[in-house]
């Protein structure tokens, strides 16, 4: 099998840029201090890169994704995709949540079509619907309602629904977090396969270090409250990766140590 490490020269063009982004949330009920969710976060993703963000809960990982998606606006700093600044949500930045959030009133086929309908291009691109249903292996469930799908199947529909828009960046917010261990491992391969097939730039938020090491080109470690980027670790392992190889395990334990160290440092600072 051919290793699919993105060519470092070809992927020089930055797809996504986040520059010195800070995000405050107003204090609840107008009393107390405003919460600082992200503090001076900068990162950039090369075209076709798959980057994971790991960190303790409450480190602002999801806030970062919502900012990139354009669902919320930063308090300071700027975000851009290619050359265009991000000011509002758009189809070029797909978002998949932990909860698949399929529209329960639409069948699998109509859920996958949703992005095409929303952009008014269903007529021209109808053929792609079948293609994407085949890609995620759900042709036989075209007329099923989300209600009848298992967690893994529902998440595959959510992935197809996001990918049919051919987003320049696919944002994944713990997309496999709610699945059981076996389904999750299968779905990791599935996401990698989609990534390989579509060469979509992906930013994956996860709390599963195995998942981050198994999937990403690069791992960003964030610290807690306020969220800051702590480490930027390249993963130089050949694909497909072996979860039990010594390199894999060494990297995994390094990251665990880093996170643990980060946690201990935080505790020291607090006391």
């Amino acid at each position, binding site marked *: 099998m051919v290793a699919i490490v993105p060519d470092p020269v070809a992927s020089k063009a930055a797809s996504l840029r986040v520059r010195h982004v800070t995000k405050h949330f107003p204090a609840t009920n107008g009393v107390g201090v405003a919460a600082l969710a992200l503090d001076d976060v900068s990162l950039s993703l090369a075209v076709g890169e798959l980057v994971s963000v790991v960190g303790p809960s409450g480190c602002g990982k999801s806030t970062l994704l*919502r900012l990139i*998606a*354009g*669902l919320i606006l930063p308090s300071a700093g700027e975000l851009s995709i290619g050359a265009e600044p991000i000011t509002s*949500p*758009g*189809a070029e*930045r*797909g*978002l998949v*949540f932990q*909860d698949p*959030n399929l*529209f*329960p*009133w*639409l*069948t699998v086929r109509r859920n996958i079509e*949703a*992005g095409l*309908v*929303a*952009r008014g291009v269903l007529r021209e691109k109808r053929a792609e619907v079948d293609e994407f249903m085949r890609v995620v292996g759900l042709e036989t469930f075209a*007329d*099923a*309602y*989300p*209600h*009848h799908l298992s967690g893994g199947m529902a998440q595959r529909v959510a992935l197809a*629904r*996001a990918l049919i*828009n051919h987003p320049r960046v696919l*944002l994944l917010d713990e997309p496999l977090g709610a699945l059981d261990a076996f389904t999750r491992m299968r779905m990791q391969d599935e996401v990698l396969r989609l990534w390989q097939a579509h060469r979509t730039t992906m930013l994956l938020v996860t709390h599963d270090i195995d998942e981050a090491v198994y999937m990403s080109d690069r791992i960003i470690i964030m610290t807690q409250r306020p969220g800051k980027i702590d480490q930027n670790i390249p993963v130089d392992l050949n694909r497909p990766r072996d979860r039990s190889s010594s390199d894999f395990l060494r990297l995994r334990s390094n990251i665990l140590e880093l996170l643990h160290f980060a946690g201990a440092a935080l505790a020291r600072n607090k006391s």
Partner: protein
Amino acid sequence: MSASVEELQPQPTIVPSAQPPGAEAAFVTPPVVKSRPQTLLAIPVGACIALAIHFFVPKTEVVPPTHYYPLVLSMMLGLGVLGAALYPFFPGLRKWMCQMCPILGIATVTVGIWELITSCLEWLPLPYFPGPEAVLGSLVSDRALIFDSTWHSLVLLISGYAVGVAVALVTGITIGWFPHARYWGMSLLKVVGPIPATAWIPLAMVVSPSALISAIGLIALAVWFPVTMLTASGISNTRASYLDVARTLGAGRAYLIFRVAIPGALPSIFIGLFMGLGTSFLTLVVAETVGVKSGLGWYVSWAQGWAEYGKVYGALVIMAAFFSTIMTVLFKVRDRVLVWQKGVIKW
């Protein structure tokens, strides 16, 4: 009105999603009780008891002899025996009989007891409580007028309900989606909405050019409040994550309103439609009693004016069937539209 009050009872149980799917279908398909073979004989036995009462207990009330009542009872007896004989061969019939036999059997016996205490024993004063034979007789003899009244009621009900629902959907969606509309609309709704539509009758009589138009307006008003309220709450409670997903898929405002918020609000809208239907029955009958010169409500008060209580009860029976049928139709529509919620399609 007894009919609509009864039909309203299941409403609290149609709260969407919070209920198991089985509970939602309770109105359309009554729960199957475990039945033994002898329950299949409930209808023939009930009919025999009622016939025995009719023929063998001496009557004190003088009733013009019509043969409709014993004829109906004999038909029930015949059909009951036929059903009991045929049920092993038709699974559909068998299921239906298991569900309906106890109810129909007891209903037949109840009619027999009614005849016993009215026509035979005269425990209840005449002319207010005629026996079943007199009621059936007036139903048959006055069938043309009753049919005409039912038709007028149906037209009036559908006109008022359609107008009310159409206006309520527009106002409900506006109030539910736009914060400014919510601020002003909810204030108005909270003050004006709870006034029963029938309380507007004096005003409606002065303002409107005809009794028919004022009746349509009153029914529409009665429907408008619950449908608006539940549509607005359904829209404003749209799950934020559905809207987020839609926006990241490239959706504009029209898509968010018509393809996310409204479908998501449909379970709530249907609760409003059921509540509105209940209040529309009430308003229909009151409007026909006080202003409109046709329809079942008018027929009841007209028959009462002539002290023809047989016709009054006949009209009540027709109303029960009429309102119950309309309610069932709405349930069927709901089940069809909300198929995604109930999971009727099985894999």
